């Protein structure tokens, strides 16, 4: 037997669409200039936020549900190997076939070979974060397989040759007029008189996709959960496109992250109360489908499931960050995030935007993935995401931990010290000795001179300029706190015990009470 040292030899790094093409600050700066985007986002996030608060306040046991949800997920992580085995046994017993994928490349290859086996070149798809994460559509397209997104928002994004910007409403950055223009240009047979009325736009999508649904032989989906005790998979949706994909084709291929397991059937009683209320702000989403392997003539005859790691085991190994895997992708955290509201989802680069993206992406890829190292800084640490999260993921705490990991990683990589390192070294030298600090404080009046007449400093050199580029610094005081304190002591000593007595005696009794 080999001795395990607790250090995993290989930690597969998440790949696919988990990376930003550019660092968050660069992307955010550009996105912030887009007035239309900001207006659309503000409207959308505030609408869902208000709805969420209303339906959450209807439940007297909301906090109990959150607590159970959080603890169930903790339990799942702790028992993952056994639950995965249990799920596989139950799913397989009902005629389903399971495939395991270490990373995006393997998952894409499995899905491709399953589609090829059917001889089809066009497949219909239900909205799924996992398939987006692995870049399945792009991969299939490169091999001549057309994957049609059937969720309205995903269709808008796909037809617009765009990227999703929100995990629940991926086209949140587009308004109705922009959507009308996309449909007019891209949907065959769309009426040239199509208006921007949402009803008309939805009807156009319905007509276009109906024909696809009726003829599709293969569908691809994600799953909101897989229940270990029964082998059941579930998809939660609104439009019925999910039901179409899960019911009509002959072959159904589902891609699901290994963390989506729930132990028991009764756990749905927790998660199906938490999820719809937190995501769309509805008491329940219009449609949920549950299937357990194959069932007679009801639904697809070939049922496949791809179990995906893609960095999840790496995140699991990070004991402080592990709870990011509890995420049920409700999107409540992004709807309350002041940073997301202003930058939008594209700035985060990865499939997962907003507060959860800022922790999940670097956890899946490793903080040393250069493009994702700036994500943990994309937060004001206000804590709104933690309050909103239905499974109580402490996002701010994980952000801070990842920032520390980033700083450490940077240090071990770099040889020459940075300006920040020099500054910090200097600060530590000065602050660790009273004499040194005293000496430096003699420079304060020079700062007042620099501040000029208005007593504000609006430009500093080097990295300190990062601070003054967005705000002014008030001029330093005439004397330091330490000087003022010393003065005070001196004064008190010169006044002797008098001062003490005076203050003791000050509220002089004006009469005799109680005698």
């Amino acid at each position, binding site marked *: 037997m080999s001795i395990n040292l607790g250090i*995993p030899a290989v930690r597969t790094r998440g790949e696919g669409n988990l990376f930003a093409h550019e660092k968050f600050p660069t992307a955010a700066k550009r996105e912030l200039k887009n007035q239309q985007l900001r207006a659309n986002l503000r409207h959308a996030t505030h609408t869902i936020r208000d709805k969420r608060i209303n339906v959450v306040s209807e439940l007297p046991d909301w906090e109990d549900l959150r607590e*159970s949800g959080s603890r169930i997920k903790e339990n799942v992580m*702790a028992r993952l190997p056994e639950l995965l085995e249990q799920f596989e046994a139950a799913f397989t017993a009902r005629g389903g076939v399971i495939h395991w994928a270490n990373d995006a490349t393997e998952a894409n290859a*499995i899905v491709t070979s399953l589609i090829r086996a059917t001889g089809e070149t066009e497949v219909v798809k239900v909205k799924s974060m996992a398939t987006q994460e692995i870049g399945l559509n792009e991969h299939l397209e490169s091999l001549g397989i057309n994957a049609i997104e*059937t969720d309205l928002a995903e269709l808008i994004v796909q037809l617009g040759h765009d990227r999703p910007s929100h995990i629940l409403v991926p086209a949140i950055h587009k308004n109705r007029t922009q959507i009308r223009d996309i449909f007019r240009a891209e949907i065959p047979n769309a009426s040239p008189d199509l208006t921007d009325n949402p009803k008309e736009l939805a009807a156009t999508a319905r007509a276009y996709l109906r024909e696809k649904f009726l003829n599709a032989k293969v569908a691809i989906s994600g799953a909101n959960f897989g229940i270990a005790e029964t082998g059941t998979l579930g998809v939660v949706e609104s439009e*019925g496109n999910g039901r179409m994909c899960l*019911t009509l084709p002959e072959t159904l291929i589902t891609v699901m992250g290994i963390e989506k397991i729930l132990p028991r059937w009764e756990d749905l009683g927790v998660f199906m109360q938490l999820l*719809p209320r937190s995501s769309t702000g509805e008491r329940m989403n219009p449609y949920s489908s549950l299937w357990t392997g194959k069932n007679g*003539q009801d639904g697809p005859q070939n049922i496949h499931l791809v179990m995906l790691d893609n960095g999840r085991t790496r995140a*699991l190994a990070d004991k402080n960050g592990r709870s990011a895997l509890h995420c049920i992708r409700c999107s409540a955290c992004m709807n309350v995030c002041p940073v997301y509201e202003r930058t939008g989802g594209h700035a985060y680069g990865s499939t997962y935007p907003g507060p959860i993206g800022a922790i999940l992406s670097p956890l899946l890829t490793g903080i040393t993935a250069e493009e994702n190292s700036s994500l943990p800084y994309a937060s004001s640490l206000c804590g709104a995401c933690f309050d909103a999260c239905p499974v109580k993921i402490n996002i701010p705490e994980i952000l801070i931990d990842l920032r520390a990991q980033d700083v450490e990683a940077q240090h071990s990589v770099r040889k020459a010290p940075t300006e920040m390192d020099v500054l910090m070294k200097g600060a530590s030298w000065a602050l660790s000795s009273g004499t040194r600090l005293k000496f430096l404080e003699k420079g304060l009046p020079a700062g007042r001179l620099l501040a000029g007449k208005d007593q504000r400093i609006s430009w500093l050199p080097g990295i300190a300029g990062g601070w003054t580029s967005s705000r002014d610094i008030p001029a330093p005081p005439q004397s330091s706190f330490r000087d003022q304190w010393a003065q005070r002591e001196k004064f008190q000593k010169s006044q002797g015990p008098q001062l003490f007595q005076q203050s003791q005696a000050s509220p002089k009794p004006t009469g005799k009470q109680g005698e």
Partner: protein
Amino acid sequence: MVGAKEDILSRVRVALQGDAPVTDIPRDYRQSGTMNQEQLIDHLTDRLVDYKAEVKVVLATDLQGAIAEFLANARSVVVPHGLDAQWIAGVADADVVTDSSEAPVPVDQLNATDAVLTSSAVSVAESGTIILDGTPTQGRRAISLVPDQHVCVVPASTIVEILPEALPRLQPSHPQTWISGPSATSDIELERVEGVHGPRRLSVIIVEDA
């Protein structure tokens, strides 16, 4: 990828090494409701109307008439093979076809069918959710999906108040559809539009025992 499973599981085991043993899961959330049947019916009706479904509450003796009224404009109706034949007997002018696992109606024909009539397994008043579980009175999932109108009968005795009460009444191995209002989207500027891909008209009949 035979090896991938072992790779993944072994990485999971290593990641978990040295952890404290798992603790019990607290379940302090509500496990049962407090409403009587009359309140349950009112509550469910309220929720369904909020979702833009049409609702009738009738006595068992009036069920046939209520069904006929909802199906007044349908030229063709599909029913699952286990449905009580009396339910559809009042619908005079429509072609009625019966679907079963042995003789499934082809999807093109379903697409040309105006309406479907089914029963339901359990309903949750608090969230306005009607659950179909693929048993013979509800049929294959395709029949309640493709036609444009779904007339769904909810026996009052199958209504519960909250979701945790509904789950023990369901068979996990049966394919299930949970329905809360007609098909809808909010993808365009968060404005709710009813009727995208599923039935655009959901007509619910809650039947009280006579």
